[in-house]
């Protein structure tokens, strides 16, 4: 099944062309140019990975990351940035980002990370389902 990706960056030209390249590789890609729209989108859609720029207008990428994970702790976020510093990278990973990739991006590396994100998410959802089943088994008499 095609991976579903949300691409968040304020550089419209960058977002458009990366969207086209990922779609050419069979992925379903939605985009957002502002952090605010991300919160609307994650309320209604399920994504295998969110690719998030660290520096955007109005809200710092690390804050956006925190807010996403507060609502959806299972969400797999790949940080994409033009100015990765060791400090910011460590902070992002500590906050729960899957990985950090520096611009300009190697498309094959990005695809690899998206596939890892999908696998991680499936694993988390499987564990969730297993726990629900265990609860059912304990609480139901059969």
């Amino acid at each position, binding site marked *: 099944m095609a991976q579903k990706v949300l691409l968040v960056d304020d550089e419209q030209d*960058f977002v458009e*062309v*990366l969207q086209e*390249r990922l779609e050419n590789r069979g992925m379903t890609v939605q985009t957002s140019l502002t952090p605010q729209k991300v919160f609307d989108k994650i309320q209604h859609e399920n994504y295998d990975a969110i690719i998030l720029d660290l520096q955007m*207008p*109005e809200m710092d990428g690390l804050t956006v990351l925190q807010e996403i994970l507060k609502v959806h702790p299972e969400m797999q976020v790949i940080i994409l940035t033009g100015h990765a510093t060791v400090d910011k990278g460590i902070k992002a990973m500590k906050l729960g980002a899957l990985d950090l990739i520096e*611009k*300009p*991006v190697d498309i094959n590396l990005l695809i690899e990370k998206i596939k890892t994100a999908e696998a991680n998410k499936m694993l988390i959802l499987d564990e969730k389902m297993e726990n629900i089943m265990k609860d059912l088994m304990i609480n139901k008499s059969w």
Partner: protein
Amino acid sequence: MNDSKISSNIFPLEDSLKFSGRVTASISHDLKNVLAIINENAGLLQDLSLMMQEGLFLSPQKLNVIANKIENQVSRANDIISRLNQFAHSVDEDIREFDVVQVIECMIKIFDRIGRAKGLNIELIKQIELIKIKTNLFYFQFIIWDCLDFIAKSINKENILILSVNFTDNIFYINFILKSGSFEEESFNAFFNNEKIILEKIMGDFIFNIREKSFILAIKNSHN
């Protein structure tokens, strides 16, 4: 305002280096974004070439769109590098005559991404199109940057900063006004105290407008 010669007070080297670091970091970030777009477009051309080998029909218009995008980004990169070059040469002479409006526009463009990250959008209003003053260009840029940085850190939601520039009686003025809200006098005074040495260097002064809670940077033209 001090009417004497440009001050010989020693400004801490560390502060000058920090300022230069912030400016070049901002410029390198902008360049990385441009390179990322060029890189993706080059990648898209490779993708399309592979798809054509497999029988995809590609319209010349599609190639033209990609070429235009690359061209636009090259032009954008050229502007960014021109700003870096202008900044790098600002230390060539201690005192020089320069077009203040052009320098302010340049600093606004370099600061833009940092400002927008904090929700600050900047508008420049020119009362006079060409204003030339003679002072220390490096420290002039430094104080403009510090003013923008102080304002960006002062706001807690999206806001518009209006910079109005004017020149009368051999004194150059920049009025910093927020479209909504205002500056607290207390935080402004703390900022003002930190800027005293640079103000001396460029023969400038701050004037706090209590009624409108805005502030003015005034700089004496040392040409005469």
